[in-house]
């Protein structure tokens, strides 16, 4: 132990920033969950798709962004700013940076809430925001990092507690993920193309997407669990050694597992196998957190019976354990073959989101709000109600989605004795799920109701107390010269005193897996065998593709025919990696609410697509797809067509100078041909409408491979 200094220093914790982030958590939480209930409703009641700004395709990214980055993000910052100061015995490094962080983050959320419904999106899941917002995120994240490390440097506690290891790993990994995944070539303020294409883009996206789950939804929450759980239960943390082991194992192994989102895709087999085995090896390290949490409650289970906050924690930690067991199981290829693209995955992520992130956040807010407002909770009874309504909500959400996912996965694969698909019409499988989707919406509504109760309860609590904006604290300063012979045993104590070394070690840990998977996929040619007949999109098709992206069609339609008999019978030849080389970004999708579209080209006449967009149920009775009538009215904006082709050329798509110069002329002549096709079917539409370009794109999809 350090030599005891005789003079204690006085300083003040900043509780105001904690309050701000807490309020933001509550408000955005309710908003994000409300959007969730809306999009859940749209999946059985297409009439709930109001105007072109409120369709499922545009609101779904809004929901995920709001819940992940606004609700969970603000919760992380509230928890970190509260616990970090106390664990380091220091006020945050800079009040200016704290405020810059807070307001910057809220502005980014508002920017997301405006741009996503407008259809301004890059289509990378959980990273849909366009490049100016990406830059803003980088700035705010750096501000957060400086603030955190500044605080660490002026700490009055020699060693960094396990919670802070997790915070540091979170900071550095999210920075790496965000920067790598956001590499885009801007065309205008609101439009850019990813520099990666096809298989490589897919790998980057799911390396990012998977590790956003790891380092945004998991590690910061584990850190917060290590602070708030022992506080709430008034128990010592079960095992210091276990925390060391599972921290390092978790961050090292997690980063490798991204390819399990791309099983049975065109990603090379070796990368898929790495995804499988590292997912399996992840069970123990992720359970390490659960065990250490639950065993910390050893000897306190009588308290759990009485204390609703501990109940929230227990359900949350158990949900974490369930989700992190299920994840590896879903990474086994034979289970993935059924579950992928179905509601099973939706159920899986919501057990994690609603249980682990939601319940831990609720418990934390209930615990810290009364403390910083120097009062008691307004109503204990409402907390109890919230717990039960939330738990029932999770059950009502998850169980129907498991049934739904399993049903759908099985129906897709079912053959008759005659050797034909039992449910040849994709819609049959969609319609079968409607009752389950209704139940899910009910579950979501219950959960939302719980969150609203919490909002009411906490705002009442705030109103009845007064914020202790600057909380007085005392601690001895760190001795300037460190004693040489510290003998507190464990080897790990060495790095706990050295934040920079801890940061670098975490960085190295996560870079190993990343580099092993990413570099060969980018460098080794044989990973993406070339197909001669695959050519770049025409200018009209490229514009159509951008409309497809704008409308969020990828939310419901995959473009990836997997190598299963059931899929090649239904859709056609399975997808090859060489077919996607000009796809900036890739559009494989992650869930099929509607059928796969990779072999859509040439299947139906142009008029079919026209009618299908105008009123889907006229072509597919019972369809739950919304009407896209505005595509028939809106004029295609061709002012950037040339720039788009030029940008693609810069990214390696072999457009000739002529093709770029004549981009609009070519676009018009192709449009004219489609217009003529439609006219022959007695459909009157002028050639400059958006629908024409979308039809051109859909008719091109997946046709190159069969061209001679």
């Amino acid at each position, binding site marked *: 132990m350090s030599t005891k200094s005789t003079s204690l220093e006085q300083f003040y914790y900043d509780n105001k920033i904690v309050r701000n982030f807490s309020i933001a958590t509550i408000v955005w939480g309710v908003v994000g969950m409300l959007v969730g209930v809306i999009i859940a409703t749209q999946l059985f009641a297409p009439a709930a798709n109001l105007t072109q700004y409120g369709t499922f395709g545009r609101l779904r990214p809004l929901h995920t962004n709001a819940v992940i980055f606004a609700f969970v993000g603000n919760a992380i910052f509230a928890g970190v700013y509260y*616990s970090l100061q106390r*664990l380091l015995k220091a006020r945050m490094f800079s009040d200016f940076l704290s405020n810059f962080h807070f307001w910057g983050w809220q502005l980014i959320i508002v920017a997301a809430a405006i741009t996503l419904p407008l259809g301004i999106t890059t289509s990378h899941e959980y990273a849909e925001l366009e490049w100016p917002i990406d830059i803003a995120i980088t700035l705010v994240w750096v501000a957060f990092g400086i603030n955190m490390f500044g605080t660490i440097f002026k700490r009055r*506690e020699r*060693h960094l507690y396990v919670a802070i290891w997790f915070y540091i790993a979170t900071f550095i990994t999210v920075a790496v993920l965000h920067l790598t995944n956001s590499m885009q070539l801007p065309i205008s303020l609101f439009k850019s193309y990813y520099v990666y294409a096809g298989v490589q883009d897919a790998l980057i996206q799911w390396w990012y997407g998977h590790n956003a789950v790891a380092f945004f939804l998991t590690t910061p929450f584990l850190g917060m669990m290590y*602070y708030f759980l*022992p*506080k709430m239960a008034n128990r*010592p*943390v*079960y*095992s*210091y*050694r*276990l925390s060391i082991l599972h921290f390092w194992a978790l961050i090292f192994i997690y980063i490798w597992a991204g390819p399990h989102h791309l099983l*049975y895709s065109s990603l090379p*087999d*070796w990368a*898929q*196998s790495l995804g*499988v*085995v*590292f997912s*399996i*090896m*992840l*069970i*123990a390290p992720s*359970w*390490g957190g659960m*065990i250490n949490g639950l*065993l910390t409650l*050893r*000897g306190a289970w009588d308290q759990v019976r009485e204390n609703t906050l501990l109940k929230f924690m227990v359900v949350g930690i158990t949900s974490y354990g369930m989700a992190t067991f299920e994840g590896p199981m879903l990474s086994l*290829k*034979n289970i993935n073959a059924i579950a992928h693209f179905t509601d099973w995955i939706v159920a899986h992520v919501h057990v994690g989101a609603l249980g682990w992130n939601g319940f831990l956040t609720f418990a934390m807010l209930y615990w810290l709000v009364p403390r910083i407002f120097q009062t008691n909770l307004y109503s204990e009874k409402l907390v109890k109600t919230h717990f039960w309504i939330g738990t029932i909500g999770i059950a009502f959400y998850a169980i129907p989605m498991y049934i739904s996912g399993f049903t759908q996965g*099985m129906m897709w694969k079912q*053959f008759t004795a*005659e*050797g*034909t*698909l039992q*449910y*040849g*019409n994709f819609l049959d499988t969609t319609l079968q799920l409607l009752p389950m989707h209704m139940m899910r919406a009910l579950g979501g509504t219950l959960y939302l109701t719980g969150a609203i109760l919490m909002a009411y309860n906490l705002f009442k609590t705030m109103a009845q107390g007064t914020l202790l904006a600057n909380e007085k604290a005392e601690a001895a300063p760190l001795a300037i010269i460190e004693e040489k012979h510290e003998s*507190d045993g464990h080897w790990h104590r060495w790095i706990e005193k050295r934040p920079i070394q801890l940061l670098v070690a975490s960085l190295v840990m996560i870079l190993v897996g990343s580099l092993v998977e990413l570099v060969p996929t980018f460098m080794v040619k044989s990973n993406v065998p070339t197909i001669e007949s695959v050519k770049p999109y025409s200018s009209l098709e490229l514009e159509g593709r951008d409309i497809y992206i704008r409308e969020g069609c990828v939310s419901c339609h995959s473009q990836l025919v997997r*190598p*299963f*008999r059931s899929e*090649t*019978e239904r859709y056609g030849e399975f997808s090859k990696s060489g077919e996607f080389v000009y796809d900036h970004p890739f559009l494989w999708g992650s869930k099929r609410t509607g059928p796969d579209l990779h072999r859509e080209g*040439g*299947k*139906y*006449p142009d*008029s*079919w697509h026209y009618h299908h967009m105008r009123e889907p149920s006229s*072509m*597919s*009775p019972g369809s739950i797809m919304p009407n896209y009538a505005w595509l028939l009215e809106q004029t295609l904006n061709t002012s950037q067509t040339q720039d788009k082709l030029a940008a693609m050329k810069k990214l390696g798509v072999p457009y000739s100078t002529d093709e770029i110069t004549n981009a609009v002329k070519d676009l018009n002549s192709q449009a004219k041909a489609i217009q003529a096709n439609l006219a022959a*079917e007695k459909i009157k539409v002028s050639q400059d409408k958006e629908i024409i370009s979308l039809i051109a794109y859909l008719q091109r999809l997946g046709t190159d491979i069969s061209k001679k």
Partner: protein
Amino acid sequence: MSVTVVEIWLVSMILMTGVVILIVTLQLHVALKKLVDQASPEPEVKQSWWDGFTGLKPLEKEKDLLMEHKYDDIAELDNPTPPWFMYLFYLTILFAVVYGLYYHVYQDGNIQETEYKTEVTIAEKAREEYMKKFANSVNEDNVTVVKEAKDLTEGSQLYSTNCVACHGDKGQGGVGPNLTDKFWIHGGDVKDLFKTITHGIPEKGMIAWNKTLNPLQIQKVASYILTLQGSNPPGAKEPQGTETKTP
């Protein structure tokens, strides 16, 4: 390799049952042992293998495990990592090694294409058998109209699964032509229909259905379509092609 879901569930059920039985047995073992231990007043502290497996130290000993540091009043215990947890970790690492060796050293690593080819080959064989037995008896030269209610119901189901998108739910036509009038573009007797459905009219957007439907099914759906003749559904599309008398 095609493992059916039933097999997956069976195996997982067996595994789960095994685990449950194991846990129950262990619990019983511990409980009984406690009773026995209580009965015999031996003060000797001997760890059962279950205690060794879980690695849990008695709560009373917590004080000895307390580490000397505290962070904002949070203390830490120096409990060992639970042995079962370590076994689990080693087991998953072993799995990874075996998986890697099996697919990427022992086999050529071309996992999914091999799997796909096997799956399709099996299905092709079954299809050939089936065609030999039944379906080959029908082709575009000898096809006749079937009249039995059972067959027509099946034909109607096939129609509503596959044909309504273009020809309307009552055959009134939409993107595709009207099927209820006497006008046919590619001929209106059962042989013509069978041919059109089988090979499609790709240049006009009519799909070749021989991949999806077998000849018997095509015969049934063609027969069903012919029952729609003269039904005059609302919103019928105007006549296309030439008038043909349908028998």
